[in-house]
């Protein structure tokens, strides 16, 4: 197997020289190429595609956002990393849509290497290349048609931070985008925690609105078949109900990650059906071009650099969990909420509901201590999600 190849793009020769020098130690592992601008980078990619592109933002002619947009369209499987100093607000917004990962200059070599190494990993065991190809093409994830008015309302003048946070917490695509951006200083001060509310507050309303606007313009969910739309509404309701319920299941420090994972549990379906055009979709098998929606979703969250506990919980949603007595953690909390909601959806215990596993999870001391009627709590969460097809309280 050939070595992974990384392409670095910067118009300043001294920066490229610096990268070449400081990454000398990686020569054994990586094939490295250097390009002095966007046009040269695209020409190189056309000849021999690479695995990851690391690009500066401010370059004469084609800037970083434009380059990465072309890379996304022509070579979606290539990881897109921005490495840049201060950039203006307009460019910040454009790059928030075009890039996968965002590093500020100066970054340590260790940080850069860590990000590149992560992007070389493909999460799908059976469909590594195909899942990367679909997930890599995503720049923004659309809202469902029934929800777009709420997203559009966010762009209006009468919006405050708490409405923005409440709307974001009910939108899969916006939640994923905000979590993606929250790791980088490009997009505001570092949030105090990984809850959507905290991220929205640290980004500030103008930045959130600009990102929402850019994502929405790029990617309105149009042309969905009625069956696809119905499928997505159902998985959205399930995700919302799971996120509500998991708030009562997960421990305080695990709650933000658990709620994010619950909301994002079926992000792969949204990507496969609405975010990336084309493909042969099978709604019963939940595949696109024979790649499971779930594999695409996990690959996307990985590419976007979401926190590992979120990715793990999404990846393990359909894996039976048997947490030890020391605590449920994020993944078992999400799985428990998911199974409870599924049982509530099918109105009672049933063959396919993993009753035995669920009763084991519910008898965990962490949950027993709450002495809650979990079936009633699940019914309530599901009712709440169903009664609000939009997402304003």
């Amino acid at each position, binding site marked *: 197997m050939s070595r992974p190849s990384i392409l670095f793009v910067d118009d300043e020769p001294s920066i490229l020289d610096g990268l070449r020098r400081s990454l000398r130690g990686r020569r054994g592992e990586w094939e490295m190429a250097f390009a002095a601008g966007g046009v040269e980078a695209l020409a190189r990619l056309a000849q021999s595609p690479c695995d990851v592109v690391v690009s500066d933002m401010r370059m004469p002619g084609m800037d970083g956002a434009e380059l990465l947009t072309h890379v996304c369209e022509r070579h979606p499987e290539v990881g897109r990393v921005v490495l840049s100093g201060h950039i203006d607000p307009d460019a910040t917004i454009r790059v928030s849509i075009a890039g996968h*990962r*965002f*590093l*500020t200059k100066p*970054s340590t070599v260790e*940080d850069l290497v*860590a*990000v590149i190494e*992560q992007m070389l990993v493909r999460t799908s065991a059976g469909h590594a290349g195909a899942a990367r190809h679909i997930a890599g093409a995503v720049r923004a994830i659309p809202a469902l048609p029934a929800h777009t008015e709420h997203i559009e309302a966010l762009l209006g003048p009468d919006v405050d931070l708490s409405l923005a946070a409440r709307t974001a917490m009910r939108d899969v695509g916006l939640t994923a985008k905000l979590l993606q951006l929250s*790791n*980088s*200083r490009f997009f505001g001060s570092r949030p*105090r*925690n*990984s809850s959507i509310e*905290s991220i929205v507050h640290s980004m500030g309303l103008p930045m959130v609105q600009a990102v929402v606007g850019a994502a929405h313009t790029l990617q309105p969910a149009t042309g969905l078949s009625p069956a696809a739309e119905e499928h997505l509404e159902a998985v959205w309701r399930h995700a919302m109900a799971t996120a509500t319920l998991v708030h009562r299941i997960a*421990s*305080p*420090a*695990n*709650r*933000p990650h658990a709620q994010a994972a619950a909301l994002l549990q079926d992000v792969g379906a949204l990507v496969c059906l609405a975010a990336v055009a084309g493909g042969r979709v099978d709604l019963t098998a939940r595949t696109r071009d024979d790649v499971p929606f779930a594999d695409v979703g996990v690959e996307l969250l990985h590419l976007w*650099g*979401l*926190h*590992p*506990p979120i990715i*793990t919980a999404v990846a393990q949603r359909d894996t039976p969990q048997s947490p030890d*007595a*020391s*605590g449920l*953690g994020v993944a078992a909390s999400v799985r428990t909420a998911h199974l409870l909601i599924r049982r509530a959806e099918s109105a009672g215990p049933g063959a396919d509901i993993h009753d035995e596993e669920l009763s084991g999870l519910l008898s965990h*001391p*962490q949950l*027993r*201590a*709450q002495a809650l009627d979990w079936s009633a709590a699940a019914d309530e969460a599901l009712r709440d999600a169903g009664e609000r097809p939009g997402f304003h309280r």
Partner: protein
Amino acid sequence: MARILVVDDDPAIRQLLIDVLEMEGYEVGIAADGLSAVQAVKASRPDFVVLDVMMPGLDGFGVLSSIRAQPGEPVPVLMRTAAAEADADARAWASGVDYYLPKPFDADAVLELIDGVLNDQAGANDR
């Protein structure tokens, strides 16, 4: 590297945990009683707290409720106790711990749990 606050009134246990955790590269802070623990969490926002239940003065439950009342991200808390109090585990879970080790003190079990939690947290995006 992640910063861990060890809260225990027993110097021998504190030292054991310091040794084990520092060997793994963690930065370890200590608090020998409940009040210093609450102040230390407020002042330094550790990444993880290992909290003993039985302490004179403000005990583990008191510490937990004080730090849960502090604003900002809830710090992950592992509560541990050697005491065989019948309702200690129910009480611990009801008061909002994230992890609980009721067994006799076992530094390796503490380390294994912390490694599992913190290594799963480590994102490498521009940190």
